[in-house]
């Protein structure tokens, strides 16, 4: 049985909405299975507002979209308050468009009166600052998008 034959069988499965095909002939055996396409039950309990991807300023072209997939996310390793600068009177660690080095401090997240410096884990350019100065951040929340150099 060659690939084309298999492809035909798969097409048949799709068309006929089959979950399994098994064939045995002349000592050959083929078995195709597909897990239940969509378990109804995985739907959330209550209709939550659909999580729309965060709107960007302008509609994104497919090309840009593709690029954004390659952007590196810097996420918060702790829960706390996000600050762009070491203190209210100093200038921010970085600005949009800045080139940063791996290990460079990007911001601080204050937790329990402790200032935790968050460093970049890649070299690249800051293409987005995702959180406003002084805002609360969760564990795993994206702080910056960096386009790796």
């Amino acid at each position: 049985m060659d690939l084309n034959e298999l492809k035909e069988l798969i097409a048949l499965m799709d068309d006929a909405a089959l979950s399994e095909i098994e064939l045995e002939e002349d000592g050959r055996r083929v078995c195709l299975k597909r897990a239940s396409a969509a378990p109804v039950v995985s739907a959330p309990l209550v209709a939550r507002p659909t999580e729309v991807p965060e709107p960007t300023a302008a509609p994104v072209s497919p090309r840009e979209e593709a690029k954004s997939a390659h952007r590196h996310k810097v996420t918060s390793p702790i829960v706390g308050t996000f600050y762009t600068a070491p203190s209210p009177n100093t200038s921010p660690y970085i600005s949009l468009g800045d080139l940063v080095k791996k290990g460079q401090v990007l911001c601080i997240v204050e937790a329990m009166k402790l200032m935790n410096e968050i460093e970049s884990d890649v070299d690249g350019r800051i293409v987005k600052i995702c959180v406003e100065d002084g805002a609360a951040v969760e564990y795993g929340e994206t702080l910056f998008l960096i386009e790796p150099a």
Partner: protein
Amino acid sequence: MFRKILIANRGEIAFRIIRACRELGVQTVAIHSEADADSLHVRFADESVCIGPADPAQSYRNIPNILSAAEITGAEAVHPGYGFLAENAHFADVCESAGIKFIGPLPECISAMGDKAKARDLMAKNGVPIIPGSEGIITEENEGIEVARKIGYPVIIKAVAGGGGRGMRVVHHETDFASAFHAAQSEAGAAFGNDGVYLEKFFIEPRHIEIQILADDKGKMIYFPERDCSIQRRHQKLVEESPSPVVDDRLRRELGKAANAAVTASRYVNAGTVEFLLDRDHNFYFIEMNTRIQVEHPISECVTGIDLVKEQIKIAAGKPLSIKQSQVKLHGHSFECRINAESPETFRPCPGAITAFHVPGGPGIRVDSASYMGSVITPYYDSLVAKLIVHDQTRAEAIAKMNGALSEFVIEGIETTLPLHKKIFEDPGFIKGRFSTTFLDHFLADFKS
């Protein structure tokens, strides 16, 4: 009253606390791991904060992140639920240092009760009966025989470094003492490199009886009718009931008095539980004190009409207990079944997605659960799917009600202990109220075959 409370827990107990807060007009902050983003406690809280990855050590036990979450959301108090940080004195301590009220007893009290030997000594000093035994290690055979005579046979010889039954011997007659003593010593020495052994009275078929208490910070306290939690497997309770089928009013008052003495001795504040072992002659002995709300608290709520979680919150907010002991009245009988996502035969956890979920209803039925159709029992946390609680006028009616409710309960997609619970509620010995903490071992042998 607090304006906002952070709930440092997950699952059904987090949801339970949210419900209590909602009724008290208190706002809630849920915390959750990345694995629990779709949980009901997250959905029904007013706010939620992700505090770490699935691993509980990095999320639900992550004190800095939990305190930060309280800080950034402006929560004034933390309810720890049960498990995780509920009996962590350090957590209670740092909460208080951060100006956040820990809904539970003071850190010192958690520490004191957490050290089982110290707790036992404190109780003994304050007139709470403890399990009779030797004071510390026994090195001489004759010393052991003397202690055994004083406390009466049977006795159990235990290794101080012990565990898993090694270095352990039950002695029924003095004639057997010497050989058992030396065997235990050498076994302990071989197993743990420490041949120290001590003596305790051994109880045949004891019951696990516990007394729920509430105490405010003004020194006022009340105790609840006892819970009988003898149906357990390796100290995991499976079925609880209140009242116990063997406790009468007189014994109930004595248990209550002992529980009150324990509260006074430990300067306990908030909800707690004093656990006792009850022997066949209805003598009881202090085992330990749990310094938190317990899984089985709903049966006490059912038979008294008092909402323990609301009372916890009110006490923590500094309100005096509004309920007098004379108002704590026993109404009817209540059972709880803990329905776990486990094989009913091997007790192996069975995580997975719930493909069908239908809870029983009607009069006298309560279900505490954070599960729903499509929800997933993850392998990271406990396997509790739902607590099924019934309440009726008599024990017999409550058993009939539980039987019906178990037959109505539908959980598909995962294995659960439902079939085991059904069998327990059909067991003639259980129905007659004749069981001890050894019940489930015998029962399981039959159940599997």
